[in-house]
């Protein structure tokens, strides 16, 4: 089972967490075109490799945090705060 290190609670099993998808998505200006708004809402990089994503320790402390994780190996390369910049981990 995959394990994640909650910044507040330490290493816990994957089943305690909920993944909320890609992080660092900037909301476009409200005057954005339909195409830009559609990209913001739906289009994702969906990389085969390192993915930066949001997780929540739903069945623990309830806190949100960011994770950089490899989508093939599932190796967690970094855990960082919601507002922190994306670490350079490949």
């Amino acid at each position, binding site marked *: *089972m995959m394990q994640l290190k909650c910044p507040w609670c330490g290493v816990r099993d994957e089943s305690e967490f909920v993944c909320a998808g890609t992080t660092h998505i900037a909301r476009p200006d409200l005057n954005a075109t339909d195409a830009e708004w559609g990209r913001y809402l739906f289009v*994702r990089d969906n990389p*085969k490799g390192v993915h930066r994503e949001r997780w929540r320790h739903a069945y623990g402390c309830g806190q949100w945090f960011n994770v950089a994780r490899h989508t093939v190996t599932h190796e967690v390369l970094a855990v960082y705060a919601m507002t922190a910049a994306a670490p350079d981990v490949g």
Partner: protein
Amino acid sequence: MKYSALALLRGALSGQRSWTQAWRSPEPKAAYDVVIVGGGGHGLATAFYLAKNHGIRNVAVLERGWLGGGNTGRNTTIVRSNYLFPESARLYEFSLKLYESLSRELNFNIMLSQRGLVLLAHSRHDLEAMARWANAMQMNGIDAELLTREAVAARAPLLDMSREARFPVLGGFMQRRAGTARHDAVAWGYARAADALGVDILQNCEVTGFVKGAAGEVTGVDTSRGRIGAARIGIAAAGHSSVLAKLAGFALPVTSYGLQAMVTEPVKPALDTVVLSPGTGAYVSQSDKGEMVLGASLDLFPSYAQRGSFAVTQSILAATLAIFPSFSRLRLLRQWAGIVDVVHDSSPIIGATPVPGLFINCGWGTGGFKAIPVGGWTLAHVLASGRSHELAEPFGLERFHSGRLIDEAAAAGIAH
């Protein structure tokens, strides 16, 4: 060579040495009229219908691994058309109808078994939602019938119908024409029939890039077996669609997840229908070999690992045993995952891409197997004519900015 009872008999007289290869393994040509990326069910069906319906036979199917080694070989083999909205109903019903005549069409036994699909209602709300769902299907001209608790018990006697059941069964609904088909046979049957019409099937041929002309249009692909030219290219790569789109210079509204399935050791016939419990996420059928085929919900984090996480394995086994307690004595033989291409509205994407000459069929998410015939039919149509097939018109990429989503909550049939 035509497969028939007579051919079997002749083979018996000659020690079964008369069988020829089902399809060739040719060397790639320098160029084709159409190249299809992805040698699973959808890609092979596309090649077959290009040759059969449109007379375009100078076609290659490029497969990174071996035929049907991706999701075509990793699904739970269920075919059905129990969708909610008219657009989806038309699409999936067309697919089921093609399945019904496919063995004859391909001269290959795909072992279609229309053993019916029973959906279980575990609460009053489930009953109401299913009544709506079944009514919507009937309005769309698709067979559906509501079942009483007793009718469900008679259809699947091993279900826990006791008063102590953790998930009591209050009733359900059924599509009788749903069922299962042999997944490998679908890939092999389309491959053999396409090959017979002149299509080149190139295995171990990975696409590493797209070649483009002055106006940005595709002119070919670079592969692990060299450059192959083509003015029209179709992508049918399921969970790897985003990877190919990135090579071609655009992005898709797709996220890839692992979807698990597993089989138990084979036992004597004990379940002659497909049982799906949307409330618990379990779905079960028995293969012709006797294995109980168990399906699960998604591993809900992006993944390209074809293995699936143990947390979900555990939850699906718990859900299955809650409705079929006697299965607790069975041993699991195999567990695996396929990488599925999930779209926000659980509806497929079929049609043009932002790159001229490049077309795509993806986004079937957890339900690609049942859609193989229609996926191939409609992708072949757009590749041949440049225009979307009328069945595929609502399923273009433009819906993600026009807002005209086809939100098939019913699509998966299980709660994601």
